[in-house]
């Protein structure tokens, strides 16, 4: 099941305006709407469901607390939430330490699948997909989750990730190609495993 938030900017603006004026119902609507994508974003980045939940809760508490202040989201609410989620993630892991990534060695080959490359990709289950994604660098994971997973625009993604548009463009290019290589290697291991 795919949870995909399609941008609906005018509705989002109205909702945000109501929330800023103190409409609690609007705050809860924003929560209902954005919790799933934020949670999914976090869940792909951390291996522990409880941790993803805690960080998601932190993101929305920050949002509620920020509503009245200067740091309140003004233009794109979605971008703001993802940016806070991203910051919370790096706070959580600390600036220096690496986010969890796995290596091919950790991965246990699963039942044989002799289909060609694309067939293989389409046959992937949650565990294998996550496993493959976590072998990417943090930034590569993020750009794929934001662009493919959450359908953020190039501009929004650049904003969330604090990068230039052209940097995001080449990052996403490298990310899909690296992921493709990882998946091919996985497939080979299954074939020979």
């Amino acid at each position: 099941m795919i949870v995909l938030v399609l941008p609906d900017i005018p509705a989002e603006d109205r909702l945000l305006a109501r929330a800023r004026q103190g409409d609690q119902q609007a705050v809860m609507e924003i929560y209902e709407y954005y919790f799933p994508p934020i949670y999914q974003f976090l869940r792909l980045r951390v291996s522990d469901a409880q941790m993803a939940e805690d960080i998601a809760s932190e993101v929305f508490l920050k949002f509620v607390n920020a509503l009245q202040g200067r740091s309140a989201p003004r233009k794109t609410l979605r971008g703001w939430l993802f940016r806070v989620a991203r910051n919370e993630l790096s706070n959580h892991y600390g600036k220096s330490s690496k986010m969890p990534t796995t290596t091919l060695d950790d991965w246990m080959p699963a039942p044989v699948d002799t289909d060609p490359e694309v067939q293989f990709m389409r046959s992937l289950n949650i565990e294998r997909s996550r496993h493959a994604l976590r072998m990417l660098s943090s930034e590569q994971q993020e750009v794929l989750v934001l662009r493919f997973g959450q359908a953020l625009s190039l501009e929004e993604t650049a904003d969330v990730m604090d990068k230039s548009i052209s940097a995001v463009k080449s990052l996403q290019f490298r990310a899909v190609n690296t992921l493709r290589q990882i998946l091919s290697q996985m497939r080979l291991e299954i074939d020979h495993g």
Partner: protein
Amino acid sequence: MVEQEQLQDILNDCIDRLGRGASLEDCLTSYPAYANDLRPMLEAGVVTRRAYAPVSEVVEAQERVRLQIAQAAAQRVPAAPVSRRPGRLFAALAAILIMAFGVVGVLAQGSLPGDALYGTKRLSETLVNIVAGGSQSPEDQFAERRLEEIEALLALGRSETVGFRGEIEIMQGAIWRVAGLSLSITPETTGVEGSRLGERVDVTARTTASSTLIAQTIIPVETRELAEPLPEPDEDSDEAVMPSPTATTLPNSPEPSATETPVPSPTQTATASPAGGPSPSPEGCTPVLPPGWVIYTIQPGNTLSGLASATNTTIDDLLAVNCLEDARFIVAGQRLYLPAQPAVQPPPPPPPQPGGNPGGGGSRPPANNNDDDDGGDDDD
């Protein structure tokens, strides 16, 4: 190099299109010369979506976090021009709570009516009132907390019975304002006749899924105190202890029981009168008595599903005709339009007893915390 930049742009265009809901094939046919390179890249990118957590996991996490956010919203986001803040009381409160209740006591401060820790919260407040002695402030603070809880329940759209005390600020037809809360008055609301503008009253009401507050009883504070002296006659504590119905969250309507299945009776009919029918919903849906239907007064133990099956109709029909939003939201004494009168009608409900059962909960079944409809305290 130039070719790679071109491929980057094309890839980017395809990601945008996928994000707008286009299919992968759509994009490949737009760039036939690149299709062979593009396909595995896009397929790899789409793997991201396959890595998503199952919906059930997301929904459960969302349930657990919702309450925290609603309470933060109720506290941080001023709902009215008057801002309510937990003030200087808080530090003293925290200290007392840790002494008396440990960490659970502090955690309970975030609970709402219907939550498991809510009893602890109320108990701890009583204790603080005792410790704080004659100070006026704690009672007001707790009254504010009660109102914040109600606001949180309304924001959540959770259906609970709540109680609060305040002044009648506005009486405009079926919509009143008491203690800053907008209150829907229905024909079933008791105590409406005697109430005056500006009077201090204790209100029991029900929050609904559509975020409205439906009044059940309105009792002037003075009347109740004359009739039923409060257990603590301390002159300052008159606001501290609320009678049981206002202080406790009542369980939702009982589940249908196997033994109670009224059978429709063709002999009994009733006449329709506008005042005797079901209450109009706040959304402007007005219940209209369909031809041949009767007015029925809900008895203790009745459920909408039980009444629906007893009168050969469906819950949905009853909800629609009676302008009800939530099948769980029926209370004994409330009047309902039914296709027929259920034959075995229990004795008529006792007249409403303002202020009855003070300090009790003893005569009522223990509040069962309504875990079934919030799921907020599930462990993983």
